[in-house]
């Protein structure tokens, strides 16, 4: 009995510091964000007025916020779908097919992930440049000299996809490595027997690989939602700063602008609350929809 009690205290003292830090740095700030979203406040002075849900009412009539919302959702969908497809494809090829230079490709695909976002943004700004950019250079080969260039970062219908392109390029390597790790855990014997039964590579992928890494895939879906929201802010900040004319504004960049440069801190926090609820809800829904019976080998 005494020993049992002692163990309880031991666990308590071991987890207390982490728990305390969690409360101080996660729970309290989050609570404060919720509280401040109910005030009209500029961020500096002591003048704070409680306005209840006023900020939220303004928010849902704010067309610029809705545009940022739209852009964020578009980025989450486009970036996730394309990255998953490509990362899964590359992972399957690199782990199932033996060929020369396999390790080389592993490294090449992973490199974008260790580069800083600022560098990636600078690289893509150069690639997308309207006069000397790589993309327009290649297009000019087909269209002939003197043709109108495509304004990758100026045309408001294209620019959000230009951003998505940079985000996908950055993300593929990371997810590829994650999928490869769980693919490595699938026993070779399954593929061998499938091969004997006459299943082709594609059938093997859909019937064996995909179901067996399903849990891992589900986890990465949540990552995709969170990282798309975070990463898009960094890319936007460096590449376009929300422009031209707000066409690449995303959740966090709009929140930042409202909280800090428009002196409406409370309103910015209200945006923060919406982002919080949105990302939680979306992750929950995605988790629910993708729930399958776990297959174990």
């Amino acid at each position, binding site marked *: 009995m005494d020993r049992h009690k002692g163990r309880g205290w031991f666990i308590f003292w071991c987890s207390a510091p982490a728990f305390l830090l969690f409360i101080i740095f996660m729970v309290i700030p989050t609570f404060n964000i919720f509280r401040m979203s109910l005030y*009209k406040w*500029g*961020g*500096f*002075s002591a*003048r704070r007025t409680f306005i209840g849900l006023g*900020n939220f009412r*303004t*928010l849902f009539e*704010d067309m*610029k*916020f809705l545009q940022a919302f739209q852009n964020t959702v578009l980025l989450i969908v486009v970036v996730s779908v394309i990255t998953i497809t490509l990362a899964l494809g590359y992972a399957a090829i690199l782990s199932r097919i033996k060929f020369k230079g396999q390790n080389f490709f592993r490294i090449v695909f992973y490199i974008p992930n260790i580069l800083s976002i600022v560098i990636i*943004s*600078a690289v893509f*700004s150069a690639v*997308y*440049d*309207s*006069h000397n950019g790589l993309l327009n250079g290649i297009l000019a080969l087909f269209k002939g000299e003197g043709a*109108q*260039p495509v*304004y*990758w*970062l*100026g*045309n*408001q219908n294209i620019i959000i996809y230009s951003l998505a392109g940079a985000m996908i390029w950055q993300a593929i390597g990371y997810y590829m490595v994650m999928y490869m790790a769980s693919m490595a855990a699938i026993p070779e014997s399954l593929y061998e027997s499938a091969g004997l039964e006459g299943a082709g590579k594609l059938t093997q992928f859909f019937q064996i690989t995909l179901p067996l890494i399903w849990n891992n895939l589900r986890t990465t879906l949540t990552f995709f939602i969170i990282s798309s929201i975070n990463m898009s802010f960094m890319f936007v900040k*460096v*590449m*376009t*700063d929300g*422009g*031209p*004319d*707000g*066409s690449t504004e995303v959740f966090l960049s709009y929140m930042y*602008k*409202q909280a*800090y*440069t*428009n*002196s*409406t801190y409370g*309103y910015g926090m209200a945006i923060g609350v919406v982002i919080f609820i949105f990302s939680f809800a979306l992750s929950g829904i995605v988790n629910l929809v993708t729930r399958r019976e776990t297959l174990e080998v």
Partner: protein
Amino acid sequence: MKKLMTIALALALTIGLFLPAMAQEAPLKVAAIETAYGAEIWQEVAAGFTAKTGIKVELVTDKNLEDVITSQMKAGDYPDVVMLATGRKAALTETLIKENLLEDLTDVLSMKVLGEEVLVKDKIAGGFTESSLTNPYGDGKTYLAPMFYSPCGLFYNAGLFAEKGWELPATWDDMWALGDKAKAEGIALFAYPTAGYFDAFFYALLFEVGGPEFFEKATRYAEGIWDTPEAQQAFDIVGKLATYTEASVPSNANNDNYLKNQQLILDNKALFMPNGTWVVGEMADAPRADGFQWGFMALPAVTEGGDRYSYTWFEQLWVPAEAQNKEAAKQFVSYVYSDEAASIFFEKGGAVQPIVGLAETLEGDNKMFFSIYDTGAKAALGNFAATEPVEGVNFADTVFGTVNSLVSGDKTRDQWVEAIKVDSDKLREALK
């Protein structure tokens, strides 16, 4: 006994540790933005101030000053004097204006300049302490001291005009005619670094179409002001100018790529860009077309013989209301207008203050730039009036940022004007 001695000694040492801190006067905390003029000017001016008064100066300079001082200020640690202009992306100065957190500096104007027998207000050139940039609440009180100024207008390659034999447009009609001529040669009429540069342009244009009284009403969001023929004329000009703008400009119109847009002028790909005199230093190392020579003019007039305006952009120095050392701070503000400080600012950094008689002593490119007001152009001063913060409304984005969409054709002139009217109505209600 020995124990008592030890305690006494320890106490003496502890007190000794704090004594010097108590005896010394609190230092003056000065925070200044480091711009193209460099940080050295501030070090020397701070040293000059200390030599005159014996007050130590704790100086902070940084290119992104907001990042350094904002968090300190939120924690209650305010600088005593801050040199940071309005119109910056982070809008810290605007935030403090909106929050009523600036110290009233009106009494500094009738103080003597430190070390001189002249009053501060007699040294500052006329008009500078009467605009909404220094008196943000329109109540006759000065909260921000005017510092380095620069005339803004249209920059061009004078060499190209000489080579082609083109004349500088004196009216907007001439401008359009020139635009068509240049288009035939594959040169665009217009480019801009970022849409934010339309502020100086648009303010000057408002003066041109309606004069000072109209400008005053427009910048205070008067009811129906945007439906007047004057405002419509200004919108027409910007709308038309958008169609004459180099097509790649919106792609690069952000903080990281705007130099590419400025490069268009140096490469003879576009004729005019709105800018300030700092552009010469900014592009000093950039490659340029043969025979390139900077040219600078005020906006063309709206009618034959009409007034032409050049916006005067200037930076501001202010004292936070929460500053601890206000007396010394005000002395410092008076000192920056002394001949001694002015010569440091100009000689070490090339920064020109609005001090009576200073512009006459300039030479070279600077002489051409700063003499624009002597050669017929009128000075436009002021900006959109400060309001209480309005959620989701950023008027600069609405008025200037939309120009990107006008150029790319994503929004029409009428959509733009409609949005301005809606936001203007909201801001009028929040006016201070």
